[in-house]
């Protein structure tokens, strides 16, 4: 080997970094069995996993009676929503598929992952053995609508931008109208019939969508120079933070009707939603405030020096940066909000957890706690994990942590 002096590298010469390639065995050796104590640790871990997983798997595949889930699947999904009206929920889902397909084509045209999610997941669900043929057809339709949205967006990306935004904005009202019903076209379905995953999702999605902007307003209010706005925001945030969510829900469900005149009846579900929104907004506000405080004053000064007014500075300069900084915290809160919706079961609403208790109370399903709770835990885990996965992708896309 010749000894090469460093000076011999010219500045124009580009050296590729060394690459490492492993075979499976090589990878195992490097990561799991590189020294005697790594080997020991690996073996002990494998043994512990074996001890824990073996009975779990044996139970799941041979002893558990999943019939309880299959028989009550519709209850778990939509509660007592009338069977002949369930098509309305499907329409809402298909509309969502269309919107997501459009968004995929226009905003993430190169993302194969998004495509896989939008097409393979509904098709996988359609292939489940125990669902009704009506659901099967609808899951296939879901994939078709997603594909149609993607096709439209790819065909005319520029012309479809406006319809996409319109769909996103209009989706909420349409969703509520579809599920609640509009006289005389769609029969009204009272909210006491809403239940299961449908109710959980509605509470979570509406909770997130409304408490998020409200929280931003409160955070800005707390930093405001107007004393009344600032005072109100602080009082509100500190008051709500001092009270548990269950208390807020009990207040909303039981106390509120006592204070209101008897002519005014506010629906149960709406009251629970309001409780969740008001509660979460206070926490959201503190998270956003954390992001606001991380913005250097130079950013405000640069914006003001350019002649931007207070609103423009906040909207174009400060908030985008502040929110980007707190994505991990916000998603953390979204996930915990999603799971906290289970508390409405305590005040008598039949969300996923409420339905689970109701199913278990039926004589023929006595003693099936394990099956039922494992099933709903799985559903909560899938959605929570999806949110956390999406947030990680979003962080990468927005370059959080890089400046």
């Amino acid at each position, binding site marked *: 080997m010749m000894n090469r002096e460093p000076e011999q590298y010219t500045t124009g010469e580009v050296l590729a970094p060394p690459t490492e390639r492993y075979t499976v065995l090589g990878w195992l050796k490097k990561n799991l069995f590189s020294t005697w104590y790594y080997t020991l640790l690996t073996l002990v871990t494998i043994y512990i996993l074996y001890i824990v997983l073996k009975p779990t798997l044996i139970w799941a595949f041979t002893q558990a009676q999943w019939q309880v889930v299959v028989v009550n699947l519709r209850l778990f999904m939509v509660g007592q929503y009338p069977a002949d009206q369930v098509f309305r929920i499907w329409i809402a889902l298909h509309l969502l598929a269309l919107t997501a397909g459009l968004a995929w084509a226009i905003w993430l045209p190169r993302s194969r992952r998004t495509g896989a999610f939008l097409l393979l997941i509904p098709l996988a669900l359609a292939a489940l053995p125990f669902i009704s043929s009506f659901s099967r057809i609808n899951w296939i339709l879901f994939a078709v609508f997603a594909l149609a949205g993607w096709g439209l967006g790819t065909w005319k990306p520029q012309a479809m931008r406006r319809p996409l935004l319109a769909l996103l904005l209009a989706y909420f009202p349409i969703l509520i109208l579809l599920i609640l019903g509009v006289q005389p076209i769609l029969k009204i379905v009272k909210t006491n019939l809403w239940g299961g995953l449908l109710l959980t999702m509605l509470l979570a999605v509406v909770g997130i969508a409304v408490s998020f902007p409200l929280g931003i307003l409160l955070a800005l209010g707390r930093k405001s120079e107007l004393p009344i706005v600032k005072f109100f925001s602080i009082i509100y945030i500190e008051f709500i933070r001092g009270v548990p969510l269950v208390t807020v829900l009990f207040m909303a469900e039981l106390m509120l009707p006592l204070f209101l005149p008897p002519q005014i009846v506010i629906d149960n579900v709406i009251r629970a939603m309001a409780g969740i929104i008001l509660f979460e907004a206070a926490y959201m506000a503190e998270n956003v405030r954390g992001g606001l405080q991380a913005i*250097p004053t*130079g*950013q405000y*000064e*640069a*914006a*003001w*020096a*350019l*002649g*931007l*007014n207070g609103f*423009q500075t906040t909207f*174009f*300069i400060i908030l*985008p*940066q502040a929110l*980007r900084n707190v994505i991990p915290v916000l998603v953390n809160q979204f996930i915990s909000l999603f799971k906290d919706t289970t508390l409405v079961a305590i005040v008598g609403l039949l969300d996923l957890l409420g339905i689970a208790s109701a199913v278990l109370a039926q004589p023929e399903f006595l003693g099936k706690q394990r099956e039922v709770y494992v099933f709903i835990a799985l559903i909560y885990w899938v959605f929570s994990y999806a949110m956390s996965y999406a947030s990680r992708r979003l962080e990468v896309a927005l370059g959080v942590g*890089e*400046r």
Partner: protein
Amino acid sequence: MREAVVKVKTTPEQILGTPEEHRADAIEKGKLPIVLAHEVHKWYGNFHVLRGVSLEVFKGEVVVIFGPSGSGKSTFIRTINRLEEYQKGKIIVDGTELSRDIRNIEKIRMETGMVFQQFNLFPHLTVLQNITLAPIQVRKWPKDKAEEVAMQLLKRVGIPDQANKFPGQLSGGQQQRVAIARALAMQPKIMLFDEPTSALDPEMIKEVLDVMVELAESGMTMLVVTHEMGFARAVADRMYFFDQGQIVESGPPEQIFTNPQEDRTKLFLSQILH
């Protein structure tokens, strides 16, 4: 402590007393100053940072402010577009008196561009978006026009190929040149520079100073806080020496450099010019 020695010819009454329809014309022709500071005082708590600063800048002039750190020169330049408040005195910019009235402040900020020591680019926007944001939002220009002007400015500061990058991808010198282009995009009548080269690596100072020299030669009215004495000697019409919140001495660069009158000026110059 002696009183501020610098004599300012114009009084606030002379400007504000001129009927508004003649004011702009008189400023344009150089009969009235475009920036007038009259006996400006500022306190931070009990600390008296500005102690009666009076200064005038006429249209097309390049004025350099220098002095030791902590002398209040940055604080002073930031009072001109109201990034800092002051408690006593008057500042009149382009015929508009700086008051608590938010409309006056916004009007003055539209007519003054500012370049900061730390660049303060918006990290979440591309270079092009950094430059076009204010023209689109404040001047209400259509996007096409704003982008066209922005590209011309980027050519002028020598980095048109960086338009679609984010500030974090640029060197310090390039970022400061983008900051200059961003301020110019609002087509200001006055440019304020607050130590624009102090945060730069030595080899990048020149590229920023070159842009500033070109700007000065194009006739822009400039008020510059800097320690770059070469720049001052080349383009300044007048220099002001700040110390302890006061203007100690002022004059054209030849006089300041070759024949300073005050001991404090002499001492400071001897320390920075070796």
